[in-house]
């Protein structure tokens, strides 16, 4: 079944918005305006956009330290996200969490998490919850190639497999777990091949092809909603920036980074949409302009927002 035109346009818009958000973030970070650390999603936008185009508003996701793209794609507000990065009171977490811990429970975003792999078992729990409550919600876990070698990958997916939970385990293999190349961190070629260990489908997909991602995730979500259990999907991609902003990237060559940039999912999808006559060049420019303005407004919102009161340090510990 072909993907509806509106959805294709939405996915493109999401990818552009994520890109413009991340560009603003790394620019402001370089200017010294953002405290702490940020981890850029640049180059991986097809995954967040393709995945979240399939999910419903009441489905759950868990996200990672590289989570801005997931949160935007799931419906998060770029103003409250930016304010959180600035540590302001108007941020999603009132400045309590920062980039790696943004959540919007109303949108089913059960938090970005700073512990690699933690979201895998949490997503398993959300899927368990949906099944126990008798709904057809699904829980999708975004995790990286690094997390695929942690204990929670094994325990979380195994548990979901034995109880046939409505979960999708979505690996964003951007080739590096921090500084460590994936070829050194595993003895096998594909993380998806580990599906065999749990008796679940393991699918490899081009992580820079938003349409392919949409199609595979759609199948996995349909499986889950029908009670057929979890799926492991591995999106092969690359990240254009370092592990974090400020990373000297001594572990890869400039040529490798250039190769990654050639695989940029956004110009690729733009070209596709124009060829399919879904959008004109002018319309894509308008989408981009709107995104630039949206993010510009988000930065302005963040900068003029107040800091939290220092005494707020003591709040939000217990219910």
């Amino acid at each position, binding site marked *: 079944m072909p993907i509806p035109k509106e959805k294709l346009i939405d996915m493109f818009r999401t990818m552009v918005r994520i890109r413009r958000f991340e560009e603003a973030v790394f620019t402001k970070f370089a200017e010294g305006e953002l405290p702490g650390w940020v981890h850029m999603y640049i180059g991986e936008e097809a995954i967040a956009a393709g995945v979240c185009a399939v999910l419903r508003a009441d489905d759950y996701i868990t996200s990672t330290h590289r989570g801005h793209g997931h949160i935007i794609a799931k419906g998060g507000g770029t103003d409250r996200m930016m304010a959180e990065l600035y540590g302001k009171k108007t941020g999603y977490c009132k400045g309590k*969490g920062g980039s790696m811990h943004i959540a919007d429970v109303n949108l089913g975003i059960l938090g970005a998490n700073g512990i690699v792999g933690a979201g895998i078992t949490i997503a398993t729990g959300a899927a368990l919850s949906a099944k126990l409550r008798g709904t057809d919600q699904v829980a999708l876990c975004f995790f990286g190639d690094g997390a695929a070698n942690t204990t929670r990958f094994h*325990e979380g997916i195994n548990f979901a497999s034995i109880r046939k939970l409505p979960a999708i385990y979505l690996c964003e293999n951007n080739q590096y777990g921090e500084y460590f190349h994936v070829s050194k961190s595993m003895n096998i070629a594909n993380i998806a091949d580990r599906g065999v260990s749990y008796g679940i489908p393991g699918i490899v997909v081009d992580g820079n092809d938003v349409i392919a991602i949409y199609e595979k995730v759609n199948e996995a979500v349909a499986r889950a909603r029908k009670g057929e259990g979890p799926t492991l999907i591995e999106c092969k991609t690359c990240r254009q920036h370092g592990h974090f902003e400020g990373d000297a990237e001594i572990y890869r060559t400039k040529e490798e980074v250039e190769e990654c940039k050639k695989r940029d999912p956004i110009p690729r999808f733009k070209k596709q949409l124009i060829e399919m006559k879904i959008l004109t060049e002018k319309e894509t420019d308008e989408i981009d302009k709107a995104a630039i303005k949206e993010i510009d407004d988000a930065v302005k919102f963040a900068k003029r927002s107040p800091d939290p009161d220092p005494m707020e340090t003591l709040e939000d510990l217990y219910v």
Partner: protein
Amino acid sequence: MKKVTFLNAITEALDEELKRDPSVFLIGEDLFGGGGYGQALGLIEKYGPDRVIDTPISETAILGSSVGAAATGLRPVPEIMYDDFAGVCGDEIINQLAKLRYMTGGQIKLPVTVRMATGAGSCSAAQHSASMQGLFMSIPGLKIVTPATAYDAKGLLKSAIRDDNPILFLEHQFLLLSDEISEIPEEEYTIPLGKADIKKEGSDVTVVTIALMVHRALAAAEKLQEKGISIEVIDLRTLVPLDKQAVLDSVRKTGRLVVMTEEPKTGNSAAEISAIVAEEAFDSLDAPIKRVCAPDTPVPFSPVLEKFFMPDEEDLIKAVTEIM
């Protein structure tokens, strides 16, 4: 009134809360057989495998799933067989349960009660006998409950399950194995968290204690009475939130404090309580604060060694006598 063991009291609390609230579910290893010590016996037959969920040996999945289920509207009661195993699912306790609500600015609610056996006395050796209260107390964002009697265990467990915060509920293994019968009300009751209980009133020395050591302190109290020394035994019942006021009021009355716990001495709950009293009731003290604790070693196996390790009545009598 009805007669129950400490173990029965735990089972009754779980049974009543499962019945009362359909969002409550148990999850853990061997629950089909009742769990680590049989606390959940009979419950899977009564409530089915979707309310009493048996798992593989997967502590990170047990607690991680509990986090996800709690964040999405349910009320999990996971069992981690021994508090020693907090080492296995340490991230879930330290970085998820304790921190997610705070880091998300209060968006996420985690009504999770993690039940764990604690303490020694059955020659289960070092990895199945720890008392981890001090470590747990030092992690902001959790509540810590550690009952000493059947009455307290039932009332506190019911309150813990109804509480919307992540709670570590520590069940002393010696008490779980004990045949000792005590009486509890027929009718339903709960006990609020954060309230200590004066198990025995006294005038000469305040003895603050928890779990199995409450019983040692009460036995010591009788012997001390024969020597003309009257100790007041305070069972904290909850370590976080701590009933600081009960401790300070008692010390202001007696002027002497001994804190007794089965934990190794360094950095334990007794250290924290001692520091609080030294800070806030220094002028009331007529003698140095004493701590009666286990040595700074893992729990040894051989009965002779385990007996030496565990504080007992004689240790308390010695400490009390020294400060009179």
